[in-house]
């Protein structure tokens, strides 16, 4: 763990890590501004409610590939004791194949959902922000997570 990670890994991490962090900070800031503006000046931030929801979506789905990348998905490890180190390695690769396949299935499903949402022009109620791009974003980060799981299949350990 203490070995410094290669530069490309850090860069890849920052690609979604920075946006996710900014969104989380903005989520907090938006509520604070909304509360203060409503209480002090009777001027709540218009659409704060729906923007918070959209930020939560971005946060979760930007975070997904990061979780896959750092192997932080919650797992049960009973089987580890039964297998030797080599067996563990093989099992992990198999599991990552399943994970990748599932992520690509979800990518396909979300992309189709995005097409429909986009075709309807579905938008938030107050600010009329289009949902479509957010659903495409979800599909893309799911694909990204799939690619990461594929990488873990072939990664040298």
């Amino acid at each position, binding site marked *: 763990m203490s070995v410094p990670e290669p530069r490309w890994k850090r860069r890849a991490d920052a690609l979604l890590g920075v946006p996710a962090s900014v969104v989380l900070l903005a989520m907090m800031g938006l509520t604070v501004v*909304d509360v203060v503006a409503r209480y002090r000046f009777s*001027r709540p931030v218009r*659409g704060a409610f729906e923007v918070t929801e959209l930020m939560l979506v971005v946060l979760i789905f930007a975070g997904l590939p990061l979780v896959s990348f750092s192997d932080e998905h919650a797992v049960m490890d009973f089987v580890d004791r039964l297998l030797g180190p080599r067996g563990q390695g093989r099992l992990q690769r198999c599991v990552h194949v399943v994970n990748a396949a599932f992520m690509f299935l979800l990518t396909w499903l979300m992309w189709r959902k995005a097409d429909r949402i986009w075709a309807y022009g*579905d938008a938030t109620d107050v600010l009329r922000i289009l949902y479509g791009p957010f659903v495409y974003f979800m599909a893309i980060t799911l694909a990204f997570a799939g690619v990461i799981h594929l990488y873990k299949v072939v990664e040298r350990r």
Partner: protein
Amino acid sequence: PAPAQTTTLTMSSWVSPQHHITAVVLQGWANEAEKATNGRVKFSMLPKHPSAPPGTFDAVRDGLVDLSFVTASYTPARHILPLMPELPGSGDTALANSIAYSRIHWKHFHKLGEYKGVKLLGVFTHGPGQMFTKKPVRSIADVQGLKIRTGGGVAEQVAKALGASAFVKPAPESYELLSSGVADGVFFPLESIISFKLETVLEQATLFPGGMYSSAFGFFMNEDKWNKLPRQDQEALEKISGEHIARLAGNSWDEADRKGMEALKKSGVKIVNANSEFVAEVKKRSTPIIEDWIQKANAKGLDGAKILAEFRDELKKAAAVK
């Protein structure tokens, strides 16, 4: 006679099982439908709604559930025309508003396909949405800067046009918003005041003729399931659809509003009819919202102004006949 083939359709509601829409409207219609088809079509209520409320249209379209209902303004990009009966100054009762809207919908709106993808059975609205506050409100001046919670859509636009500081939060948070003082008031139909137990935290109900807003609902069925029904069952269901549903739901909303009014009176909330000056001011300020709808209806290829006038005529007729 040979035993007829029976179909069981799933139904679900995003409001609680005790809410009159679930218990009276949905369940009531299901009972009628079972009788009308001599028991060939049966219904089962899912214990949990399969989507978030705004996702109901897609849930029925995709077959997650066979029948449900939803507020049109949850999908504002898809359902623009149903905003008509939601505009300020519509029907004085849910029944009149629902009947008038239903007539206009089936005559003018339905062919434009805003409910394409599902089998629409009926449309209806709730009763007039009114203003409830924790402070006395006598004129438009008292509304300025008042922190008003609405559910969005026309209600939010009206509250904003009146000069209130309007914000959108989930309806079930209303009690907390009011009791803690985050909100000074809410826009709701009378019914919701009891269903969200708000009567203890409110001081005044200000009533406007026709209300500040309403909500338009559609009640619909999965199209594949509909197409698979035998012809005679489709016909039997058609007979209890359309305006029949508007009447069923409209009556039920009015009954719920009556109970809401009683509860308000019992808990000592002051009920004030807005004076003519106040009403005129609200009317003036909400004109742009109505103009906006006319524009949007025109963009869909309708004559918005003419249809709105026709709707108002129907309202008068519906109110006169009962």
